[in-house]
Each structure stands twice: as structure tokens, then as C-alpha cells.
């Protein structure tokens, strides 16, 4: 791994984001390069890996470095601050000996991987109405429940963690629509918080190692948050290196003067079709919660962009769109000693086969989710590479249309059990709630009677006789 703060890298041009190709006017897909000192340059459109408590779920840091090509990750501060207040969270006390980023070292993220930090994880758990945002605070969900995060505190601590990109705090009311009055309030708050944050940053003498600040856009059109947009184009302009979009609505009327900024999407696409649509709206880097949900559901993504050639005049092809993914729980995979998806070159597909995946899921072995996570992220890597090529070649729009025809509109339904559900994955509905995780073992009430009734096979019984006795589920397939 390369050491940080290499003099050579410090001399890189301040230009962090270069647009290579974009629609001449209005919104449209665009090609770019996001280059930060010490990190591998990211060709856009691309995606960020999503983390939970600093780790892409199931992927230990050595597997991350060796078996994935995830070029950047998004980390939510709320995963680290359950002790605050009254205690200082451990992360803030961690001082790596070499002066590198405490957050990066703490979560053991490779040096070359882009590190983006925001207040809330993605997807965030919607705050209960009793814990809504205030003029000074936003509601965050920690390992010990909802807490309030002061805007001032956020601005202070994120700077010390030395991420590459920090998403400024916005008054984003996750899970709720914004009424007119609420938009006015959210606009005022976000202006205030961003201005305070920028003032704090400008007061710092040594600014070369500062994270780039991305400004959150409220999930409404720019016209509806005009004051904030004005602030971004005027007093905050020089301090902002990018935008974070929470809804496509805020990109439709984005002023040209903000067009040069990279756009980070927290727009929660639920299918690859959505991803393409969000790219078409000009999102440069997107976060994709459905990948992780698919992994936990035991689903292997299986889509490519551009879509494979199909015969447009062949009715069978038109009537039978391809599935976007494969449910690895299906017993039909039990003896399939071939890759999850044909020709896939990921670690999972080159080292293992469907039969093993199916076995691991059925046996609830943790490795199943590890291998699926690796495969699913690899599928995304190829998908985005294909998207960039088609934008460069000017065929993006046609290919999106072909993609829509070639593939089913939704991912397959979840059929199997995922890993244990954690507190940050669902909102408690209060008392009387059913258990989220099934007890792994239950007593067989009628066991003793059945044993008494059972006939004993002869001592020299062969396997097929035993099979009839029901040993070992020999009737698979």
C-alpha cells in the first residue's frame, strides 16, 4: 500500500473532477474522471460500495482488497457514534501513528479506495416522528437507537476523520414527503449548517489535506430550494467540490453554474433499470442499496450492459425477458458445478460453483453471503464499465432501451432466509412485535412417539434402504 501525502500527489492539479463528455445542454448522461490525491482515479458513471459499521457487509478487509474491485465506499458517521454523548466515540480518539486518516485506518480500508463520509448510512432508517430534525440537529440511528446529531458537532468531527469526501449535513427528512412549509424550513436549516461548516473549514490554516465538501441537495426541484441554490452558486461556491442528490427532482433544473460539480446519488435505485435512469439524469456516482439486499436474500445478480444480443424479430426473445438475477436458494442449483453466471470472472465464479452457494445458503453458512457479495459487486463493476463505454460511443440511449426490453423489470422475489436482521435494518413498531429472527433450534414435540413407532432396518441395510428410512435427505432433486 502506498503511503499518503506523497509530495508528487500533492502537486496534482486541484481539478478533482473532469467531465469528459456530457450532453451539450440540459440533463443527460455524462462521462467523467474523479481523481483525488493518493486514490485510484474513478471513471464515472460509477458506484460506491455501501458499508455498515465500516465494512461492506460480509466482506472482510482482506477479501475487499483481493476479491473485489470496489473503487470507493460510503460510510455513515452514525455507525460510529453510539457512545456520544456522554463519551467521545473511540474513532475520534484513534490517532494512527503515520498521521493518516483515522477513519480509513480504523476500518482498514485500502489506501487506493475512495472514502466518502456522510452523517447517515445508506439506506437510512427513517426516524420516528418524535425524533425529527430540529434547527440544530438531525436524527441519526446508532447501535443504541435514535440519537440527535448536532450540525455543529458534525462539522467539527468529520473534518478530523480525514475522509476524501465529506457530504455536508442537510435537513433531509428521510421517508417523508416535504410540504411547502417544511421545504422552506429545510432550506433555511441547510443553508445555515453548510455556511457554518464552510466557515469552520475556511478557518483552518493547513487545508491541503482537507476532505472535499459535497453539498446536499434537498429532495425537491432547485426552484423550490432557490435560496439554498443561490447560496451554493455564490458565497459557498468556492468551498463546494460536489453535490449529493437525494432525489432526481433536484437535478432537473440544476443551474449551469453548478454543472461542473460531480453528483453523488443517494437516490436509492431499486433495479438496474433505475440505475440507468439515474445515470441518464446526470448522476455521476451512485449508491445502490439493492445490491446488498440481493446478497442477503441469496440472490446472484445476472445482468450486463449493453444487454446480450437478442433477436428482435424472434417472438420468443421478446416474450421472454431475461431475469435480472438468480435465486441461489433454488434446489435446482444443488448439483450445478458451474459458475453463478456464465463467463463471470469474479473470485466466486472462478473458485466456486452454484452447488456450493446453494449448499451454503441452505446450511445458513456465513460464507454464502460473502461469496454472493463479491459476485454481485463484480456484476456492478462490469455493468458500469459497459455504461461508460456506451456513453463514450454515443449509444447509451439505444442500449438503455434494449436493456429495458431484454430484461425483466424487477429482481426476483426473495425466497430464502437472510442473515440475522440487525436493529439498524428495521424500524421497531413498538410492543407486541413479532420476532425478526427465527430461533435456530426448536424441540421436536412428537419426536419420542415417532422414534417408538419407527421400524428398524436390518443391520446390513444398504444406502437405498436407509434412504427410504429418510436419512440425510437423499431425495434432493
Amino acid at each position, binding site marked *: *500500500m502506498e503511503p499518503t501525502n506523497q509530495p508528487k500527489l500533492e502537486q496534482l492539479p486541484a481539478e478533482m473532477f473532469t467531465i469528459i463528455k456530457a450532453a451539450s445542454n440540459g440533463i443527460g448522461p455524462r462521462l467523467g474522471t474523479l481523481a483525488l490525491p493518493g486514490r485510484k482515479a474513478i471513471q464515472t458513471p460509477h458506484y460506491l460500495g455501501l458499508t455498515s*459499521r465500516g465494512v461492506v*457487509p*460480509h466482506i472482510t478487509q482482506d477479501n475487499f482488497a483481493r476479491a473485489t474491485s470496489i473503487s470507493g465506499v460510503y460510510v455513515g458517521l452514525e455507525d460510529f457514534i453510539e457512545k456520544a454523548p456522554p463519551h467521545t466515540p473511540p474513532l475520534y480518539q484513534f490517532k494512527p501513528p503515520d498521521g493518516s486518516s483515522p477513519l480509513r485506518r480504523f476500518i482498514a480500508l485500502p489506501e487506493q479506495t475512495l472514502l466518502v463520509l456522510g452523517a447517515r448510512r445508506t439506506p437510512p432508517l427513517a426516524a420516528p416522528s418524535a425524533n425529527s430534525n430540529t434547527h440544530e440537529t438531525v436524527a441519526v440511528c446508532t447501535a443504541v437507537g435514535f440519537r440527535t446529531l448536532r450540525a455543529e458537532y458534525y462539522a467539527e468531527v468529520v473534518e478530523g476523520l480525514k475522509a476524501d469526501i465529506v457530504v455536508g449535513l442537510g435537513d433531509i427528512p428521510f421517508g417523508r414527503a416535504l410540504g411547502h412549509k417544511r421545504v422552506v424550513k429545510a432550506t433555511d436549516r441547510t443553508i445555515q449548517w453548510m455556511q457554518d461548516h464552510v466557515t469552520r473549514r475556511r478557518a483552518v490554516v493547513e487545508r491541503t489535506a482537507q476532505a472535499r465538501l459535497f453539498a446536499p441537495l434537498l429532495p425537491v426541484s432547485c426552484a423550490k430550494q432557490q435560496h439554498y441554490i443561490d447560496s451554493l452558486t455564490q458565497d459557498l461556491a468556492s468551498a463546494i467540490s460536489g453535490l449529493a442528490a437525494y432525489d432526481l427532482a433536484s437535478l432537473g433544473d440544476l443551474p449551469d453554474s453548478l454543472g461542473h460539480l460531480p453528483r453523488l446519488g443517494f437516490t436509492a435505485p431499486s433495479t438496474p433499470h433505475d440505475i440507468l435512469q439515474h445515470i441518464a439524469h446526470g448522476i455521476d456516482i451512485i449508491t445502490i442499496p439493492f445490491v446488498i439486499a440481493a446478497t442477503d436474500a441469496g440472490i446472484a445478480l445476472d445482468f450486463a450492459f449493453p444487454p446480450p444480443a437478442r433477436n428482435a424479430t424472434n417472438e420468443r426473445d421478446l416474450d421472454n425477458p431475461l431475469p435480472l438475477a438468480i435465486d441461489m436458494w433454488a434446489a435446482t442449483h444443488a448439483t450445478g458445478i458451474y459458475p453463478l453466471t456464465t463467463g463471470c470472472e469474479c473470485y466466486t465464479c472462478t473458485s466456486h460453483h452454484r452447488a456450493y452457494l446453494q449448499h451454503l445458503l*441452505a446450511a445458513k453458512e456465513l460464507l454464502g453471503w460473502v461469496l454472493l457479495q463479491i459476485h454481485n459487486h463484480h456484476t456492478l463493476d462490469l455493468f458500469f464499465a459497459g455504461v461508460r463505454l456506451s456513453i463514450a460511443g454515443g449509444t447509451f440511449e439505444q442500449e438503455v432501451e434494449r436493456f429495458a426490453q431484454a430484461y425483466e423489470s424487477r429482481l426476483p422475489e426473495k425466497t430464502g432466509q437472510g442473515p440475522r436482521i440487525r436493529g439498524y435494518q428495521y424500524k421497531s413498531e413498538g410492543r407486541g412485535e413479532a420476532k425478526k429472527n427465527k430461533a435456530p433450534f426448536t424441540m421436536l414435540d412428537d419426536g419420542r412417539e415417532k422414534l417408538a413407532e419407527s421400524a428398524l432396518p436390518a443391520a446390513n441395510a444398504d444406502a437405498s434402504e436407509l434412504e427410504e428410512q429418510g436419512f440425510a*435427505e437423499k431425495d434432493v432433486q
Partner: protein
Amino acid sequence: MSGLSGLSVPEDMVLRPRPSALKFDLVTKCSTTKARAATLQLPHGPVSLPMFMPVATQGSLKGLTPKQLEETSCRLCLNNTYHLGLKPGQKTLDAIGGAHKLQSWPHNILTDSGGFQMVSLLKLAQVTEDGVRFLSPHDGTPMLLTPEHSISLQNSIGSDIIMQLDDVIATTSPDHARIEEAMHRSVRWLDRCIAAHEKPHSQNLFCIIQGGLDLDLRRECCEEMVARDTPGIAIGGLSGGEAKAEYCKVVSTCTSLLPDNKPRYVMGVGYPEDILVSIALGADMFDCVWPTRTARFGNAVTSTGVFNLRHASYAYDFRPVEDGCKCTCCRPPSEGGLGITRAYIHHTAAKETAGAHLLSMHNVHHLLDLVRQARESIVEQRYPSFLRAYFGKLYAGDKNKYPQWAVDALGGVGVDLMA
């Protein structure tokens, strides 16, 4: 063969040497203790003895990829026949071509017979002369596992070392007659296993010495089973809550009766102290789920003891899990490791699966490395001083804390821990 005249060995079995798929090369015998260093050539490559074998129950080591398991230096892991027999099942194993192919593990696999799980996991298991009767944990269907079927399953699994089906009784059982019956039945079942074993040239069948804590029964069992000339020998029925002193007596009694030229495997032993003492008593192979299971509870195994990193005191502890440890988790980035801190394990333990995976990597590496160091010291004829140094570090030099059983057992093989 006159010396065997009193044994119940069928004549055709003693006359011809058993086929074997291993080669045991004794490298060094400790000049003080009964410890040995050896190399065991197995169908999927050589392994060094003494050796700790982590347990990949259902064909995976609790979240680690085969690549990660390989990086802990493991070259032989366990699979459980009982679990693989239920899932994916024999038919699927046959279709896939065995457990190596199932889990893409290029190194060696050892499987147990499946009997132990039935007795330990299933309250309603009954042992009869035919086999173990039990109820399917899935749907309650009555089932029977015979020695023949256990071997057939293990033949389908294709493991490099397979175990006979034995009649496992808790050593703490007060029913002496039952223990004696179990020992004799285990011998009879060994004969059935040998007869049923279809792949003796690619899979090594190990017998399992039974007899509870009764040393005479153990001696008788050793004699009977050694005569049957299996490629390797296991000492079973231990590690079930018996007093450690009793355990040591059984291991030592058995190893004294076992031939020098065969590997000796003490089943289910996994605590570092137990392993090191057992090595001194002449045992070579050990297995236990403990390092991985305890990792899932946030416990780190180190040379100064076991620490629960979920404890609040570790939230701000930015040292590696164990200072100087060479595992992927602990090594600093400058040495190609991850530089994971105790605080980060605290942060993820029991909250993210990856937290358990990281700690499993460390714990398994720790045990493999401990036994590797033990072997090195045996080869260099300094095992007694290695043992003294190990206990000294573990108990921070406080000899009053040394477990009496370990002091006594090691004293019995010429190592005075208190010196």
C-alpha cells in the same frame, strides 16, 4: 501372530497388511517427554505433526473463504459427516464429486463418523448394535446410521482421513457396564467399517479407542484396535467434561500402547494448554470448534489468555488483537496485513458478520501457529523449555496459577513446570 491369539480379530484381517493412503515419517522424538514431530503425507499433500485442525462443519470455516483458510497456514480441516449427510446429502455429494470439489478446498479434509453429533446434538438418539437411531432434526423422521452407512457417506465425501463409527459414551457416565459395552461395540463396528470401506487406497480409515476413564478398558481397546492395523489411530470419548487429570491418564496410557509409526489423534481437544500437554503425552493431532465458535462471541485467543473484545474496556484499545501476531488481521499494513485494532473488533463483534470472520482468522492462526512453534521446539529438542515459557507467559509468571493437572501431567513426562 501368536501374541494376538487371545484377540477376537478375524483371521483374514490380521494376515494381510491394511491398505493405506498415507505415509507417516517420524522426524524427531522429544528426548524428555513423549512428544513427537512427524510429517504425514496425505492424498492432498503433506502436513506437519503435531497439528491443530480447524473445523469447517458444513464445508466452510465460518465465513472464511478457502483462500483465507489457506492463509492461516491450515492444510487439513475437518468436515462433519453428520452435517454434510443432511446437507447437501449423499446423492448431491456423489453428483458433485465429493467435499473437496464442493468447497473448492485443494488441501486435506478429515471427517468424523457422524455418531458423535447424533449423540451430542440429538437428545433422542439411541445406540443399538445395528447403529445409531435418531430423529431427523429437520422433520422428525426416524433414521438409522450404521457403520456401513457412515463409511459409505464418508466415501462419498472423499475425505483424506475418515473415522470409524464408534459408540460414544460420556466419560463421566456412571454406568460402567455401558462403557464397557460401548468399547466392545466400537471394536465390532470397526470391523464393519473396515469391511465396508470401499476406498482404502485414497482414504485413510482411523480407528477410535474407547473405554471411558477406565484404563484397563482403554488398554484392552488399544490392543484390539492396534491389531486391526488402521492407517491412523484416534483416542475418542474425551473432552466431554471429565477431570483433566483423568483425561491425561487416558491419553498417556493409550499413547504408550500405540505403535510409533502411526499418527495419533485426540478428538475434540482445542484449548491451547490441553493441546500442549497432550503433545507432551505423545498425541499428534487435535481438532476443535472452539477458536471459531468463541470468535463469534467476540473472544480473542492469545498467548496471554482469552479476552472478550466485546467488553467496554476494548472500545478504546487501538492495539492489534495480539501484539506481534503474524495473522492477516493483526499484521500492520506495512507488513501487508490489515492492522485491525481491538477497538474495531469491539465495534463489529456481534454486529457485523465480518467482525467474527476477522477474529476467526486470528484465532485459527493463533492455534495453528502455537502448534507449529511447539513442533519446532520438539525438532530442536527444547520442548520442555517451550512448555515452561508458554505457561510462564500465559499466567504472567505466577506459578500459583498453573493448573495442577498440567503440572502433574507434565511432571509425569519429565517436565517440571515449577522449576
